[in-house]
């Protein structure tokens, strides 16, 4: 079964992926930061049982993975595939996840909260992703006693997640909106209604590959439906804006930018991951504008070209060696 980034998805000319995350905790035991090793093991088994002994298709389609059985390279490659968080990967505590074969569903056990349900789908699929997450939430609630309060909603270790415990996000590819310098204005206006826009890769003011994540910030006093509806409206506006701006571009200049990127990727011998991401961003733009014709999928290549994903495939590599393998991989894929 192939991953979300290896398939054609709705509106994926702009929306790279859709993610739903639900934070849930059990009552009567401390939150993960204060848990003992015994309590952690006990929690892992409880969640495992809740899934495997449920009379649902999830019992068969989801696999329990003890993270201590996973080699460190694969743990880090899971971060690069957005299955687990960097914090979860970096922890030495007894951790486990529950994962679907296509890796679209993952449940982190004992991360910041006892349970983090995550559903990640390619393209723009908010309703579908939430539907799956909610089904899992209901299933787990049937056998686990979730901490809930009438006023504060689902209780979470970090007070910023109280209420619905829902973080809904979309990852958008916005190269033209970005170059018009409008991202910060957009960030300001969505900030006023409780949403954030941030660069998906890279830190500070210079995001890599023109990828932006839009997500809800407020979880208390807003229903799941409202949060999802608002995110949908914001995303649709951003899609329209990006598509509109793309139409207005000078065709020859755009072709030049895209083909230059293709030229480098088809001929390079040494390639850093940052350069790869920025070039693939232009290839993605070129494909959606009908300029570049290729079977290659830029987002799939972008993920496969990450450091630990390369090492998962080719074995332990020094950074300089990785840059060579990465260049080879891109030449091969875009030949």
């Amino acid at each position, binding site marked *: 079964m192939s991953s979300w980034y290896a398939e054609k998805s709705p509106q994926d000319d702009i929306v790279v992926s859709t993610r739903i995350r639900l934070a849930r905790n059990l009552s009567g035991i401390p939150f993960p930061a204060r848990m003992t090793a015994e309590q952690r093991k006990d929690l892992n088994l409880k969640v495992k049982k809740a899934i495997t002994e449920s009379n649902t298709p999830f019992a068969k389609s989801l696999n329990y993975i003890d993270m201590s059985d996973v080699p460190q390279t694969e743990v880090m490659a899971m971060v690069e595939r957005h299955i687990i968080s960097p914090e979860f990967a970096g922890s030495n505590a007894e951790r486990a996840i529950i994962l679907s074969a296509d890796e679209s569903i993952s449940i982190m056990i004992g991360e910041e909260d006892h349970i983090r349900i995550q559903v990640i789908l390619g393209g723009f699929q908010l309703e579908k992703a939430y539907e799956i997450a909610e089904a899992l939430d209901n299933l787990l609630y049937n056998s686990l006693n979730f901490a809930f309060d009438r006023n504060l909603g689902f209780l979470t270790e*970090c007070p910023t997640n109280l209420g619905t415990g829902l973080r809904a996000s979309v990852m958008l590819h916005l190269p033209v909106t970005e170059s018009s310098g409008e991202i910060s204005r957009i960030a300001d206006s969505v900030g006023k209604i409780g949403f954030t826009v941030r660069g998906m890769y890279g830190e500070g003011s210079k995001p890599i590959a023109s990828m932006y994540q839009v997500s809800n910030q407020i979880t208390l006093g807003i*229903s799941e439906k409202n949060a999802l509806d608002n995110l949908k409206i914001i995303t649709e506006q951003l899609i329209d804006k990006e598509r509109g701006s793309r139409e207005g571009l000078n065709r020859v200049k755009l072709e030049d930018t895209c083909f230059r990127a293709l030229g480098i990727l088809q001929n390079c011998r040494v390639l850093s991951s940052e350069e790869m991401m920025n070039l693939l961003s232009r290839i993605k733009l070129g494909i959606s504008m009908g300029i570049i014709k290729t079977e290659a999928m830029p987002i799939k290549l972008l993920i496969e070209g990450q450091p630990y994903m390369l090492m998962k495939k080719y074995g332990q590599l020094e950074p300089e060696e990785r840059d060579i393998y990465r260049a080879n991989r891109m030449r091969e894929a875009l030949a």
Partner: protein
Amino acid sequence: MLCDKCGKNNATTHIKQIINGVVTEHDLCSACAAKEGFGKFSNGSLAEMLSSMFGDIGAVGAGTKAVRCPVCGATFADIAETGKVGCADCYRTFYSELLPYLKRVHGTVKHTGKIPNSTPLAEKPQEETAENLRMELNRLVSEEKFEEAAVIRDKIKKLEEKGNE
């Protein structure tokens, strides 16, 4: 661009905070950024930011007797220091201490989303136990809604009188 704080070094760190829709922006040099607690840009920065927000709220309660959560043993000082709550019961134990902070983060303290084991996304009235009513009373008092609080107070009184009969 020069640092907003010291005005001497080049600003290399751009801070944008959005709290309840209020946007503040700063351009800082790395030294001033570290001083302001924005030195590390791991995901730990959120916890640090939280604990700094808790800090000024926690300071008010400092010096008073250290109440411990009966389930996990955390004190409010522990929570203020880490920005992380010890367990679900801490929300009950330290409700009034946490409340001003929760309001700052979310702008409200009334959950309007899903209620477990109910029709998805629908609202369902909660059972009126003395415990639930007391929590509601705390909330109304802290929001200075005294008239509504008085109604709840009378309900609690009635419930307790019934219990004593």
